């Protein structure tokens, strides 16, 4: 009869207490598993969304990194078609999207609203970013875009225009003069950041070229890589190839561009860490109280075991084993519970409120994240080990005579 076997018998004997602690551990474990899965899903979604927006890599003129443009496309990539072809030849590249950033005023004849414009190559852009899915009214730009424009629903509302209506776009050209062209609203897009939604405008390269009078120059090349491609190696090759062709560009990864991604990640890790710490403290305190009660109730039994020749370490291991066994039982129950809760959450499609500045809440989706389950198991076993250790040590150090006399 080992200390572990004796520990198991005691757990069975004290069913109610074992069940109570098991439930505490199960909830703790399920919280770890579910929160971990939710956060993993959030990180994954945020990462995908970020990459969809900014690409995995961006090639920009070196000057654009450290300075602000005085005029439109001042630091643009000239001979963009050639640069795009060079990038597209890299074996890791899935697609290359030229983009031109510009600002100006959009007017319906009666009212003028500032906009933030982006010039795109519509078909490749839609294929790589899923931009077509953001269109809520009307249609996406077709072909090279022609004279079509897409407006954020906020901007369209402010201008009181709908698909088919005409708008006049004004902007400054690279040489500083003011230019205006007419465009036709093809569709409205729902940009999920409200401030941007109120200013967003997209147009095909042809219209942007006419507006800015800057044929062949773009602000950046947005690069998407094939799945599993080595991002850093691809960046080095592409930079080298562009440099060899005389382009003074640098490549930046999506992590460098999307500073908010790391900030959000840190925020989530901080929140998760804090909640996890509170959880662990609650489990430790609960378990320590329960184990202390167990030691107190079984004081005379401990004295007997010691009198019969059980070493102090044997008593210590017995109580530690009880704690760890409860942790394992609780984790198994917690895993089942987490599976059920996860299925319910994912099936019912609960939606989170929109983030600050956002227009849409995200549906809650909890991923099955094995690492969170493993972390939950380790956390609960360690937690119960710590919670059991001090009562167990006290049991091991009891005076045999006093323990035998305990009433």
């Amino acid at each position: 009869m080992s200390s572990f076997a004796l520990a198991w018998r005691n757990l069975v004997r004290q069913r109610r207490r074992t069940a109570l602690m098991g439930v505490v551990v199960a909830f703790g474990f399920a919280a770890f598993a579910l929160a971990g899965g939710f956060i993993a899903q959030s990180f994954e979604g945020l990462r995908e969304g970020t990459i969809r927006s900014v690409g995995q890599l961006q090639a920009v003129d070196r000057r654009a990194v450290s300075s602000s443009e005085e005029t439109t496309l001042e630091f643009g990539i000239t001979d963009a078609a050639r640069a795009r072809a060079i990038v597209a030849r890299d074996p890791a590249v899935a697609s290359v999207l030229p983009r031109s950033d510009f600002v100006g005023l959009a007017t319906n004849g009666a009212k003028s609203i500032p906009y933030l414009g982006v010039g795109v190559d519509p078909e490749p852009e839609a294929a790589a970013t899923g931009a077509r899915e953001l269109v809520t009214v009307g249609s996406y730009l077709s072909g090279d875009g022609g004279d079509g424009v897409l407006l954020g629903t906020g901007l369209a509302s402010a201008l009181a225009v709908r698909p088919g209506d005409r708008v006049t776009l004004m902007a400054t050209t690279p040489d500083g003069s003011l230019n205006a062209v007419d465009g036709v609203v093809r569709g409205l897009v729902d940009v999920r950041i409200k401030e941007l939604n109120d200013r967003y405008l997209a147009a095909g390269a042809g219209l942007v070229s006419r507006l800015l009078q800057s044929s062949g120059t773009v602000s950046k090349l947005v690069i998407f890589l094939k799945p599993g491609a080595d991002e850093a190696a691809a960046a080095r090759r592409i930079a080298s190839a562009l440099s060899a062709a005389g382009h003074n560009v640098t490549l930046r990864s999506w992590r460098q561009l999307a500073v908010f991604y790391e900030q959000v990640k840190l925020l989530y890790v901080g929140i998760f860490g804090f909640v996890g710490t509170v959880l662990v403290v609650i489990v430790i305190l609960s378990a320590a109280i329960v184990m202390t009660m167990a030691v107190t109730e079984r004081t005379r039994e401990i004295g007997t075991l010691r009198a019969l020749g059980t070493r102090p370490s044997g008593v210590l291991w017995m109580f530690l084993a009880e704690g760890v066994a409860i942790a394992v039982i609780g984790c198994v129950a917690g895993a089942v519970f987490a599976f059920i809760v996860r299925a319910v959450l994912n099936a019912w499609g609960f939606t989170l409120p929109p983030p600050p500045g956002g227009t849409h809440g995200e549906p809650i989706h909890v991923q099955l994240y094995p690492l969170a389950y493993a972390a939950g198991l380790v956390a609960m076993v360690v937690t119960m080990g710590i919670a059991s250790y001090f009562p167990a040590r006290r049991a091991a150090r009891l005076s045999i005579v006093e323990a035998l006399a305990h009433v």
Partner: protein
Amino acid sequence: MAPSPEPGSDPSPLLEARDVTRTYRMGVERVPAVQDVSLQVRASEFVALQGPSGSGKTTLLNILGLLDRPDAGTLLIAGREAGGLSENERADLRRDRFGFVFQTFNLIPVLSAQENVAYPMALAGVAAGERRTRAEQLLAAVGLEQKASVRPDLLSGGQRQRVAIARALANHPAVVFADEPTANLDSKTAEDILDLMRGLCDSRRVAFLFATHDPRVVARARRVVSLHDGRIESDVVSPEAPR
């Protein structure tokens, strides 16, 4: 202090206490429980430590059984000085050379009668098969072979004490310490238990050392050590006591 009885034919005592003293602290007061006691116990002795409450008999029993440490004096186990032994060494000695029978039986409630008897053997590393065989034999020796699989809470007081006696004999001890073993038993059961212990003492050459108030135990003892105020008042061998 009375001298130990005649050494007998065995020159080396199993237990020897020399000028052992144990004092307890009661608040700010220090209460001497055992004072300068010297005593020897040899193989196969059936010894009763008797005296009024507070005379120090249980304290002396605990010290001799390595359950407690004296404040002063020397304790020898089979000639080996026990004062410097670590907790683990003391536990091993209790496991291998001593058996214990308690007033309240102190069986492990989650173990069956057989498992209770086998527990000290498991501590000593005896193989499972041998543990089972020996536990069955010991339960048969105390008349409980039919109760091997029964948990303690389903046994009577007398049956529990028999299991405790069988457990005390599990690792072939040299000495069994029994603290008021008949106090919680009715007269008939107490008589039976004492007869059983005396028989085991003779048949297995195990020394039994009792701390007791019970005149029936004293009547059966071959040697009676009387304590008063922590000191040995008399140490008498009763030749007429049945062996």
